[in-house]
């Protein structure tokens, strides 16, 4: 039962154009979302996050949009650069018992930016 879904396993984009990575979730109790980027042979690194009280968060070339009614978020990278080529994971945080939190990760989307 995949609570966080990234339905596109891969995406190719031309350098300079916009990359849009999508993520859908099923649990309306998720209230915080993160995007991680992973290069081969390295661990994921945090990229950007958004709280459910917002619908947009921007950091340089990276913007995350959240549509709570659709249970959908997306990561926009503009302009895309060859160095952005990596696997991108969407993650959601849900409140657990005793005030702790659990991270639920999607399956990832492999982005390839073509020079």
């Amino acid at each position, binding site marked *: 039962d995949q609570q966080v879904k990234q339905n596109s396993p891969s995406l190719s984009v031309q350098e300079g154009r916009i990359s849009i990575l999508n993520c859908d979730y099923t649990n309306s109790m998720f209230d915080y979302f993160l995007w991680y980027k992973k290069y081969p042979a390295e661990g994921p690194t945090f990229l950007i*996050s958004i709280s459910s009280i917002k619908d947009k968060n921007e950091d340089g070339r990276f913007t995350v949009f959240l549509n709570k009614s659709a249970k959908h978020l997306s990561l926009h990278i503009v302009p895309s650069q060859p160095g952005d080529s990596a696997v991108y994971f969407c993650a959601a945080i849900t409140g657990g018992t005793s005030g*702790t939190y659990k*991270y639920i990760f999607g399956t990832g989307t492999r982005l390839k930016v073509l020079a």
Partner: protein
Amino acid sequence: GAGVSQSPSNKVTEKGKDVELRCDPISGHTALYWYRQSLGQGLEFLIYFQGNSAPDKSGLPSDRFSAERTGGSVSTLTIQRTQQEDSAVYLCASSWDRLEKDTQYFGPGTRLTVL
């Protein structure tokens, strides 16, 4: 400063053997997580440690899996009587405090191959 480190980076073992995977979190981080990523899958939560509290073992797939965290720092994930389906990349992450929606910092992972 030093990030999260994991050893070994690669481990090949025969079915039925036991393996130990090590994680050194970032100094001062009280929360430590183990995940695994099987081929084509997302990051699957295994176990979490927070300070001196009892670990959250809810993600461990079977009783062949166990983990320890000594002195609130280094952690060891042990898989007994390995099976071929245990083959995956095992990732460790740490953060300051799981009681906050905090960014996790990942290690490079250990790629386990069970023949």
